[in-house]
């Protein structure tokens, strides 16, 4: 019994990972757009589970909060409002499928090329931080949120702020587009 539970506990990441893949397949494969959104939601929740299995509690819960709680709800909202007819949908997908396969294959090759070292290489002994003196006295394994906030607000403050400005630009742009369409 003990051994069995331990084995499950050790392989939690793999279990959640496989379930996330199943969710992603459901998202691609299902006919109805709402079912796709549901598959996406399932995949997102399982990715949160993967983070939790890796003891990255903060990231896991933030994944639930941001993706499952915010973004997928908006997807659902938009899909429910913009109901496409079944036939039109099928045609669009058939036209795109050839290019989509090429794009995905190219994207995967690029991804592997860039992250080759991170995936197949040996794990680095220390986390990459620009100012290690800030992380002193921080128990990263048990103070997830503090560690992430050190990273965001001390080590990588400028990229973080630039990112939020980009998001703001996107927001303003969306408002402008919506306004001009109505007039």
């Amino acid at each position, binding site marked *: 019994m003990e051994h069995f539970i331990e084995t499950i506990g050790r392989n939690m990441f793999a279990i959640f990972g496989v379930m996330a893949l199943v969710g992603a397949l459901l998202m691609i494969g299902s006919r109805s757009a709402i079912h796709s959104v549901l598959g996406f*939601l399932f995949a997102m929740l399982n990715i949160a589970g993967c983070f939790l299995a890796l003891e990255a509690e903060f990231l896991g819960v933030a994944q639930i909060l941001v993706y499952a*709680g915010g973004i997928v709800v908006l997807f659902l909202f938009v899909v429910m409002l913009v109901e496409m007819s079944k036939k039109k949908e099928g045609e669009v997908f058939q036209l795109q499928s050839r290019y989509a396969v090429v794009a995905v294959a190219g994207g995967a090759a690029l991804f592997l090329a860039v992250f080759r070292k991170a995936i197949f290489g040996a794990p680095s002994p220390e986390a990459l931080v620009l100012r290690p003196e800030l992380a002193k006295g921080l128990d990263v394994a048990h103070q997830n949120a503090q560690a992430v906030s050190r990273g965001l607000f001390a080590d990588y403050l400028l990229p973080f702020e630039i990112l939020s400005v980009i998001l703001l630009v996107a927001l303003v742009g969306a408002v402008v587009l919506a306004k001009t369409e109505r007039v």
Partner: protein
Amino acid sequence: MPTPTLTQSIVITLIQCLLVVIFVFVVVPLTVFAERKVLGHLQQRLGSTRVASGHIGFSGWMNRRMWKMGRVPVVSYWRGIPGLVGDVLKLILKEDIMPAKADKFVFFLAPSISMVAAIVVFAAISFVPGTFFTFPTWFPYLGGLPVSGGISDINVGLLWILGVATVGVYGIVLAGWSSNSKYPLLGGLRSAAQMVSYEVPLTLSLLAPVVLSASLNFSEMSSHMAIGMPAWALIPQVIGFLLYLTCGFAETNRLPFDMPEAENELVAGFHTEYSGMKFGLFYLAEYINMTVVSALASAFFLGGPWLLPFGLQGLLNPYLPGFLSWFGAPHAIFFVAKIIFLLFTYIWVRGTIPRYRYDQIMAVGWKYLIPLALVNLLLAAVIRCFAV
């Protein structure tokens, strides 16, 4: 104190889950009954005083006598309680109708998402900091092991609660969509917009306790907000408390914010097409969500398992004489009492304030509550920076 093995700790966790489920299934029916009674008194009537079979036996005889004498029978006042059993039986036994053109899978999924999201939140709520009780040594298998006051008091407990609670919105939206009918769809869309917008001030108002206590852990936050800080630093959080409660009302779709089911506009909103226990799950989820909101409000603003709210416990504690030291220690009874008081407040508000119009709800949320919550957060940050 012996350390539990892995299997033992899992068994203990299952026992805790069972306790939480029992707590929920005791609190929810009693809230329903209290709602009938309190609403009755708010509207100058008695609420439910009898069930159909209330005419037999001694108390039935006394009832009839007292009604004949022109009085409200004392025995009769509580006789509506068996009606709760009737309600549950009716929900379970009633025919489960599914609309012919409904999306069957999603129609089935929606109530379960609502229910699961409502009850999983309790995983991170700790009723008492530290140990709740210890198994006596004669107990088989688990003798001498401690049971902690929360199922898992994780470091990011508050985020877990907020995140899982937001998943509950899918239940309502999907129920509205899968019914394949106009009123539920409108109810679902309304609720999606309402809940997503009220989540912002809700989270912002909960950020003030996070800033003040510098933690995301549930029991750490509640003890910081109860005894860890001087009272004057916490009393401004009355604003935060009221903000949180308002947003909590909107999040749980209670009056005056019950847009998803606004009866006179949308028949019954998102659950128009639901019947039987599927409707029962939505009903249950709504009341569990009310309990969760009350639990958070009492933990972060009303002192949680301690006696006094708003940091006043810290003022009181040094002056407590020895025989009253019970009032200085955390206890689950205080927590539950506060939850019950806040549930009463829910019913009280429902009986007092009429429903808002939809555009008014959105205006209140975006134009007043969010700026107010930001000001409150700034206040907390200033106090944290200069004082604590």
